[in-house]
């Protein structure tokens, strides 16, 4: 039995204080660390919620149900398919945080390869490795109330999501592309000015256009913009139009594929396939 749902249904003992839980599946810990990186807000947040389950931060572990659960990481093992169901059952609201949890993460590169070959490459005894052939987002397994993107998630956005859920309102997380943030920041466009390949036009906003600010093209760590997901969004992505631009900036087919196959490969892959089909027809 991979997971046990906590005892009797009861909300936090301290009446009126909502409980917060943080769980992790396959991931780098970076997204939950983002919560500990909110140094200015951490103690005041801890005054407003009861942290009921956050293994990285505290040994005090309370059984569910939880008012708000944050899940980092993707589903990659048979045990985790069970675990995520138990987590869902114990959570009033379940929010997934980061590219692993919302899109399968970098480990979803296995989805396009032979996972047994992968296991043989890394492990001396691949027979000990208990893994699924795919790395999938949490939403492929259970209902999700909100998805926050990014590899890692943005600190301010994470706080906004938590605050909004505690207040019972919809988080204010705009669905446009990195280009909007770049313009707002007054950046010079790296593609126009320097011919630097940039995924800004097709990438979900949220980071504040960090890469272009540092003179680098966006590499898509927040995943596709406007992608219809379980929690909203409408497809406005124009990848087919962007690919010729990437190529005129010096990328060949393999470069384009690598560029899109990183931290949100599973999401971008579908867009890439659609673009290729369009190219052929």
């Amino acid at each position, binding site marked *: 039995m991979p*997971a046990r749902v906590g005892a009797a249904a009861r909300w936090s003992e301290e009446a009126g204080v909502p409980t917060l839980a943080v769980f992790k599946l396959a991931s780098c*810990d970076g997204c939950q660390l983002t919560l500990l990186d909110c140094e200015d807000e951490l103690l005041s947040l801890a005054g407003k919620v009861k942290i009921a389950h956050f293994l990285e931060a505290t040994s005090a572990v309370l059984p569910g149900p939880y008012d708000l659960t944050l899940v980092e990481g993707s589903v990659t093992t048979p045990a985790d398919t069970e675990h995520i169901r138990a987590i869902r059952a114990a959570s009033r609201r379940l929010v997934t945080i980061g590219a692993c949890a919302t899109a399968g993460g970098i480990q979803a590169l296995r989805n396009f390869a032979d996972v047994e070959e992968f296991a043989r490459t890394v492990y001396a005894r691949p027979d000990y490795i208990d893994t699924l052939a795919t790395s999938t987002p949490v939403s492929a397994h259970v209902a999700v109330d909100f998805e926050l993107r990014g590899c890692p998630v943005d600190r301010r956005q994470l706080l906004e999501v938590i605050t909004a859920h505690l207040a019972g309102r919809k988080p204010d997380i705009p669905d446009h592309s990195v280009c909007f943030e770049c313009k707002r920041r007054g950046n010079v466009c790296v593609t126009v000015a320097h011919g630097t390949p940039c995924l800004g036009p097709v990438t979900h906003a949220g980071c504040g256009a960090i890469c272009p600010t540092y003179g680098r093209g966006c590499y898509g760590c927040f995943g596709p913009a406007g992608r219809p997901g379980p929690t909203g969004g409408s497809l406005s992505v124009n990848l087919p139009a962007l690919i010729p631009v990437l190529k005129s900036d010096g990328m060949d087919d393999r470069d384009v594929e690598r560029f899109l196959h990183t931290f949100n490969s599973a999401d971008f892959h579908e867009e890439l396939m659609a673009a290729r089909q369009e190219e052929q027809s």
Partner: protein
Amino acid sequence: MTHRGSRTLHVGSLTRVEGEGALHLEVQDNTVTRAQLQIYEPPRFFEAFLRGRAHTEPPDITARVCGICPVAYQMSACAAIEDACGVTVDPRVVALRRLLYCGEWIESQTLHIYLLHAPDFLGCDGAIELARTARGHVERGLRLKQAGNAILDLLGGRAIHPVNVRLGGFHRAPAPAELQTLHARLTHALEDARLTAAWVSGFEFPDTETDADLLALATPGTYAIEGGTPAALRLDGNLSTFPLHTFLDRVREEHLPHSTALYSTLDGRRHLTGSLARFAISGRWLTRPARDAAVAAGLGDPWEGAVCRNPFRSILVRAVEVVYAVTEALRLIETYEPPSRPYVEVPPVVGTGHGATEAPRGLLYHRYALDADGTVTDARLVPPTAQNQGAIEDDLRRTAQAALDAGEPDDAELAALCERAIRNHDPCISCSTHFLDLTVERTRSARTV
């Protein structure tokens, strides 16, 4: 619990460590017969999917092995690939890399001291609980951690998975005036770091020593961080170095018959990397404020070759390293000269390269083999926690045995003590890219939801 003196103890979810793991202890007639740190971090196959990538990609990709020490992964990857391509970077770029790394040291070591480790010495569940009784201390810790993050934010663009690092250097080098904005904050951080060392030196430490060989990078003239030659300090005091390209001949991963875990050994003996090893090997190069903090904390004089082998006291050494990293960051800012170009081109060459740097929790080794067009054909990552596992389990065994010899600890006491023995080493379980101990989970009692 079976008959008196024999029991099996299992802690299914270790807390206040990075990543997910469990501990397993078997006791027969009051003798510890098995002590294991088990990893149930699902495999993510970095070494497999790095094959076929461009040689410019591993710094960004391997950062995602670990959200706690992404800079370490970026720096080891750059070092290894630049080595493969025979490229040397501008010393001013090296200085900027060191500054970025200091940011990660300050952030990560302070996180461990305050949020993960100190609660063990003060008998509470975590820093948030600690803040109820010692808010001033926790606030100081958060402020110090934030100073480290400020360096990462400015130089890297963000603290977790910085975007500004690239093969050959940085996308953009900061203007001197930008770096100056960090100066005042770091001057304040130096005071916080000193107070941190003074605070933790008031803790009580169980008396115990590891007999593991200590392994750290060494660079004469400085406390090695972003490069150096592997140096091993044996239990008998013998210090020797070996060339980095022989690393995988010396540090070997073995599959022991009695266990399903992979153990790294150095020349066939268990070894330990991290703060204790660095302090012993590079201590004479600590700055005066760091050295003074060490002496005041009762660690002895590192300028005279003091060695600390008590893993419980690693919190002191981490605090000293934070003092060091702050003074070093201040020096690097004061002497900063922008490089003429923020990076050098690194044209691909067929060959193999090796890179190692000192992640906060120990030596992180990368090796890449490249094709003529720069395609990665093979990748090996050896993280510090994978190397430390043998020493951690030996600590577990020794600590548990001492407690059994001294009295009759109940399961909860024994479990708490064992968890502490593990946390002493700040294991980063997410980093453990190739532990084998994954099937155990099927028979284990489960995680709690």
